[in-house]
């Protein structure tokens, strides 16, 4: 029984806690033993992406201290997982990180699971979050997991691989552009006829949901973990 150390990410911890709980549910049902190391905070990406490497390094060092000795670190976010797996090497030359797994990656590549015995009625379209898609090469795994959810019909949007426009501080530094990109994204989502859009990144979902609500849409957003925890 694999011992999994979950890194829920600061945004899930503080803003979308149900995503973390759902991920824990799915992992426990799959037979994992879960630990949540309470000293965890953030991966440091906001500082790193804004050019504040020294400040990011401090946060990253804290992360590495907290997760010392963990065998599997599972993260409900492609961007945070990519930050740790790829960009910690930019902060600590020679550093190599092989313990970090984005949630859907962990289920399919490590646990070899594609059916987690979930059910959710509805038509779902999947948004490929950029870091997951391009840095971690995650494309099929979430789709296979969704396809096995009973009652769920998966439809593809034409702009699935297009950025949602969040980009961290970009969303407020270039708010108008970020908003315009989001509106293009939600138009593509609406064209699918889906009632739900799913992603593996809460930051994307926050951006997309914010835009959907502002546009008065009834389409809801769900994190993949929440879908897979549904019964």
């Amino acid at each position: 029984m694999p011992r999994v150390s979950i890194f829920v990410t600061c945004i899930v911890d503080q803003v979308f806690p149900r995503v973390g709980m759902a991920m824990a549910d799915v992992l426990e049902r799959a037979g994992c033993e879960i630990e949540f190391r309470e000293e965890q905070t953030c991966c440091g990406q906001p500082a790193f992406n804004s050019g504040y490497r020294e400040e990011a390094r401090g946060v990253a060092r804290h992360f590495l201290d907290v997760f010392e000795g963990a065998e599997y670190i599972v993260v409900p976010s492609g961007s945070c997982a990519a930050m740790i797996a790829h960009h910690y090497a930019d902060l600590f030359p020679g550093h190599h990180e092989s313990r970090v797994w984005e949630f859907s990656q962990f289920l399919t590549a490590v646990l070899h699971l594609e059916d987690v015995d979930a059910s959710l009625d509805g038509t779902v379209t999947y948004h490929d979050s950029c870091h997951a898609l391009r840095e971690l090469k995650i494309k099929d795994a979430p789709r296979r997991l969704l396809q096995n959810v009973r009652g769920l019909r998966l439809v593809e949007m034409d702009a699935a691989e297009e950025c949602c426009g969040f980009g961290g501080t970009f969303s407020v530094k270039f708010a108008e552009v970020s908003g315009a990109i989001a509106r293009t994204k939600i138009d593509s989502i609406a064209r699918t006829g889906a009632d739900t859009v799913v992603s593996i990144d809460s930051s994307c979902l926050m951006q997309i949901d914010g835009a959907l609500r502002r546009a008065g849409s009834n389409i809801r957003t769900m994190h993949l973990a929440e879908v897979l925890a549904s019964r």
Partner: protein
Amino acid sequence: MNYQEKITGALDDPKLQLAIYTATGRLAEGRRKAVVADVLPDYQELRQHAHDIKKHTLDHLDSYLVEFERNVVARGGQVIWANDATEACDFVRNLVRERAAKLVVKSKSMTTEEIHLNHRLESDGVEVVETDLGEYIIQLAGETPYHIIAPALHKTREQVAAVLDSPLDSTAEELTAKARAALRKKFLEADIGITGANFLVADSGAIVLVENEGNARLSSAAPRIHIAVAGIEKVIPRAQDLAVFLKLLARSATGQPLSVYTSLLAGPRREGEPDGPDEFYLLLLDNGRTRVLADREKRQSLYCIRCGACLNHCPVYRKIGGYSYPWVYSGPIGKILTPQFMGIEQDPWLPFASSLCGACGEVCPVKIDLPKILLDLRAEVVARRKNRSELRAFRIFSWIMRHPRAYARMGQLARIAARTAPGAAKMFGPLNAWLSQRDLPAMPERSFRELWRDRKSGDPAGKSGNKS
């Protein structure tokens, strides 16, 4: 207009938004169909190979440029080494004066845009005619190129008709025919033809022109004098290296397996040859390229073969359009070249005008790591500019994230504040900016760590967070 005004102007123009999105979308879809696994199975290997050839060439640029010059001269051409825009333009202006040239025809060359060649020649009283259809249109409109390969990408058919003084319901064929007729005369009357060059082949002294309209060939062959202007980074070692680049360039740019015309030209017309100019000049341009070359990490920015794919896939370019960028090169490649050529202090906002989606790096045919360079440039801006309030904010962020109990407490307070005084969010700049475009998420009562503590202590309500 500052960049914010330009961006707002572009975003507020629905016709422009539609034009940009559809045109770039068409080019991107073309590329996708041309590089997909069952059409070009070795696409990824080709990208790496192209990257490696460029790396090798730039690592030995001095000897390849010397070899190239030797071979151009051996074929009867002349090579001029221009350190900057002034030297480059002065050479052309002097030659024009010496030959008493009145009319110059040009094919599309972003390098000549870089040095403002047309403007310099026109102020000398020379008539300069752009012969690429898109360039011709924007020249008549008094505008600059909107996109690296599609200069008039921003124009609708009606706008083009207005520029060409044609009825607004003219078809694309009618407009093209009108332009063609006007341009044909110019080709035949021109004294000098000026082109760019997509590649400079060191082992043969040949230049390569990649085009769809035939105007570059005609500009190089009809007038008695041909001047080709090219950045020093355009060199490749051998003719057979073209096989790698030609398999990538047109596919990445438009989705064509090859552009309509690919010409290899070496020197002027020689004895017994039916076509070609009497005189051939190759103007090698530095204009800051050796400075970029000096940075071992960022010199890969010079690998660019000007395909425009990064523009077509950039969510930011597809919204703000070519004119929001400060220099002739727009899109992601423009974002990394501009600070390196102009100095990072000139447009410090530029590396931050990106959501870091990484699509540019994914589609670059020569595997320039654009996202990494953007991140490096951001760190450089921060190191140079010392934005005090931002530095303080991130120092606080770092401190909080290194002190879990303080972090948990701050989170609690923020969530309470968000729920009790939602209007207060408008007081904070970043939150106000967020709210200008979309709604804020509803803040939960309890954080994950609080729910987890309940779950561990056996509280059934803690399961799946249905208490939040």
